């Protein structure tokens, strides 16, 4: 009996002590393991969530839940009249994180900014190739090597970017993950120690959370960074529990093993919504699912044929069957939540009879073609195979015979780019920086062979695209892009299928989580009530 009592007392003491030490913790069930914690070499959304959005900050930041930019590490900036020089005034007193592996001796300054970009740009920098085979895909993909002329340190807290040509999306680009600011002092320390690899394994930034530990493929732990320039976070510990299967993530959320999860499977959403302990936030995704015709091959080189095929498709049936109500019919190549979206454009009506007549008028008889179906599920198109089947049935009604083809994912995209590709190719896009150009570039002449699967080079559209890129005034750009959308709809290089909704299920005790249109998962400002 005495023994039992002693044990009970010990248990009580342990639980009281444990309770005192209980930190406020948020567990996020994430979908994949981060490749590393350097924010710039990788391109996956899960890499960004685990590195740039937690540990780091940028010169400019996207406003929480919006695609507009706000001051970040730069408290102000000026742009020269010719649009070639951007001068940023850095926020004074910004602290890099102090951990058991790095203690900064100075605050953030212009050297850090210059280093953050030059390591991705200058091949002579030892940091350019500190990771074997790193291509700095985003820096290159956003055209920075050609865009940047030089980055000049004006003084400790002033830095000037000189461009080779005007680029209106330059500021939103700087809010992107690859443009996160890293510590030059930390890099120098690792240089001296000969342990450059550690830069991506034990990260140092100026963001809301500091890195604590990563158990490969299992758990990433962060702690609130006391010195964060935006103020200390309300939660003490942030934990990413890596759970690849969406159904298992949903079970973990229901069982209380995590507080919030990413990317639920469409089939699980109703069950999560019905759970009394959970809430499911939703938002229009900044994305588009489309089907691109090969506009260089007959009969798809004729606008009337493309229009007729578009009119033959019952989009509502696709939205009901595949998106299960979590999407809206797409009219334009950019989503309605984006600025410059042209509301006046009407979608091609669903009219099989008219479509049939248009095909006959265009002299097309007994058309057989291929419909390409992606082998993977994507937020913008959860089941391309099913979409293809529905379109196939719709086409049959106007006398068009369609064969569905699919290949392994990388092979699929590779074959889709080929100039002699037959038929209509399903794909989609999710925005990077909230700029309309980040969607419309997919249809640019330069993008043929890369992301322009319609192999469509329309001079009128291209001229507007280029004009938009060189214009800084937002009102004027809006007009240009509205006009570009008119050209797009008239020429119909794509069947615009849908913009999908994105869901974020979480426990009701989580507050302050704001869904991000760019698909980023940010945990600054989040709180949990115990």
């Amino acid at each position, binding site marked *: 009996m005495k023994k039992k009592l002693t044990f009970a007392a010990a248990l009580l003491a342990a639980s009281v002590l444990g309770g005192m030490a209980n930190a406020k913790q948020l567990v996020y069930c994430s979908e994949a393991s981060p490749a590393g914690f350097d924010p710039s070499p990788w391109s996956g959304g899960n890499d960004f969530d685990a590195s740039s959005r937690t540990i780091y900050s940028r010169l400019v930041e996207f406003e929480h839940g919006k695609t507009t930019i706000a001051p970040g590490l730069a408290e102000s900036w000026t742009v020269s009249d010719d649009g070639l020089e951007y001068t940023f005034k850095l926020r004074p007193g910004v602290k890099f994180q102090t951990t058991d592996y790095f203690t900064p001796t100075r605050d953030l300054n212009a050297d850090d900014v210059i280093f953050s970009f030059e390591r991705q740009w200058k091949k002579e920098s030892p940091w350019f190739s500190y990771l074997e085979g790193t291509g700095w895909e985003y820096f290159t993909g956003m055209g920075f090597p050609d865009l940047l002329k030089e980055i000049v340190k004006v003084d400790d807290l002033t830095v000037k970017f000189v461009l080779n040509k005007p680029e209106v999306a330059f500021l939103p680009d700087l809010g992107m993950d690859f443009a996160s600011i890293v510590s030059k002092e930390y890099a120098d320390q690792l240089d001296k120690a000969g342990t450059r690899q550690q830069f991506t394994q034990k990260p140092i930034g100026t963001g809301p959370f500091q890195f604590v530990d990563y158990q490969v493929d299992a758990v990433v732990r962060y702690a609130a960074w006391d010195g964060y320039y935006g103020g200390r976070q309300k939660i003490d510990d942030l934990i990413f529990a890596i759970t690849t299967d969406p159904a*298992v993530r949903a079970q973990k959320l229901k069982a209380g093993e995590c507080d919030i999860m990413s990317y639920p499977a469409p089939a699980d959403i109703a069950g999560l919504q019905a759970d009394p302990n959970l809430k499911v936030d939703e938002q229009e995704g900044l994305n588009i699912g489309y089907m691109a015709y090969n506009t260089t091959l007959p009969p798809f080189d004729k606008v009337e044929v493309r229009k007729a095929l578009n009119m033959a498709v019952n989009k509502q049936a696709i939205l009901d069957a595949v998106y299960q109500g979590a999407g809206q019919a797409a009219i334009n190549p950019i989503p309605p939540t984006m600025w410059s979206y042209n509301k006046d454009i009407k979608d091609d009506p669903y009219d099989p009879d008219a479509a049939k007549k248009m095909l006959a008028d265009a002299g097309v008889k007994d058309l057989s073609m291929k419909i390409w179906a992606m082998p993977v599920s994507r937020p913008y198109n959860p089941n391309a195979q099913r979409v293809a089947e529905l379109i196939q049935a719709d086409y049959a009604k106007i006398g068009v015979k369609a064969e569905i083809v699919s290949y392994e994912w990388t092979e699929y995209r590779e074959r889709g780019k080929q100039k002699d590709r037959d038929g209509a190719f399903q794909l989609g896009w999710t925005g990077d920086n909230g700029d309309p150009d980040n969607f419309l570039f997919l249809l640019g002449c330069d993008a043929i062979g890369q992301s322009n699967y319609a192999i469509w080079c329309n001079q009128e559209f291209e001229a507007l695209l280029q004009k938009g890129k060189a214009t800084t005034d937002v009102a004027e750009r809006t007009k240009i892009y509205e006009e570009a959308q008119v050209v797009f709809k008239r020429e119909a290089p794509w069947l615009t299928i849908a913009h999908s909704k994105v869901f974020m299920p979480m426990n009701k005790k989580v507050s302050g989580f704001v869904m991000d249109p760019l698909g980023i998962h940010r945990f600054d400002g989040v709180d949990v009530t115990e």
Partner: protein
Amino acid sequence: MLRYLLHKLALIIPTVFGISLAAFAFVRLLPGDPIMALAGERGVSPERYAELVERFGYNRPYVIQYLEYIGRVLTGDFGISIATKRPVLGEFQALFPATLELATIALIIAVLIGIPAGIFAAVKRGSWFDQATMGVALTGYSMPIFWWGLLLIIFFSGYLGWTPVSGRIGLQYFFKPTTGFMLIDSLISGKSGAFRSAASHLVLPAIVLATIPLAVIARQTRSAMLEVLGEDYVRTARAKGLAPRRVIGLHAFRNALIPVATTIGLQVGTLMAGAILTETIFSWPGIGKWMIDAIAKRDYVVVQSGLLIIALIVMAVNLIVDVLYAVINPRIRVQ
């Protein structure tokens, strides 16, 4: 015995080369390549693509690439992952204990349940127990692991709340791994409740992973026992008036054990293959999940080296089983 061992070892060398070649070729036969996989939907310009191919050396003849790879492997350098830029051997060492722990527990479950079930089924041949056991074994053998795992999660974790859904230990327990085996590390950590948490996290994945080997072991034990039970010496033992338990346990089972031991040895390969799916469902950070990720990313280096390391381990285990087999049955040494 030494000759036998040398003979076995001599067989392993060409097998290792064969496997290294197969692993090297397999991942390159898959459509796509790591550069395209890393580029994602954004794509990559043809010039940039050519530059990266050049940098990784994928434009050189396959023979040269293979010989270079083998040369490096022979010096113990398994390369650096294309996706994560970490050394493959380091990643393997970090993740393998998780797989080993899961596979060991699964094998223990399979043996502890499979062998007695097989024996009883054989002894009570044709009875309802025999039919039920073999029916369950066949179901277990044919059940898709993914579905089975999810079903158990939904029932035991979701509905009953008896076991955790996934992971290796409760997130409140945070300590640096000492051995990589969570059951041991949780004990060493001295944190109260840590061991219990680690053990409860093991239950469902171990059951799922044990299902197929258990079915195979039970069926093999049953058929081996049936064969032995019909032998003359068993009849003699019975005729001598020995207790049935003694006849089955001592005379029959010992002789039936040889094919069963071989079967258990062969299950190592099944466990490694099963671990791939089991780990994916239960977010178990082991080498199975690692390989799946690497294949999806066309991470040539991880796939070819990972497969080779796994094959080496499976072969080493099989060698040990062969040796033990020779110890159990001296006739094999002579053959």
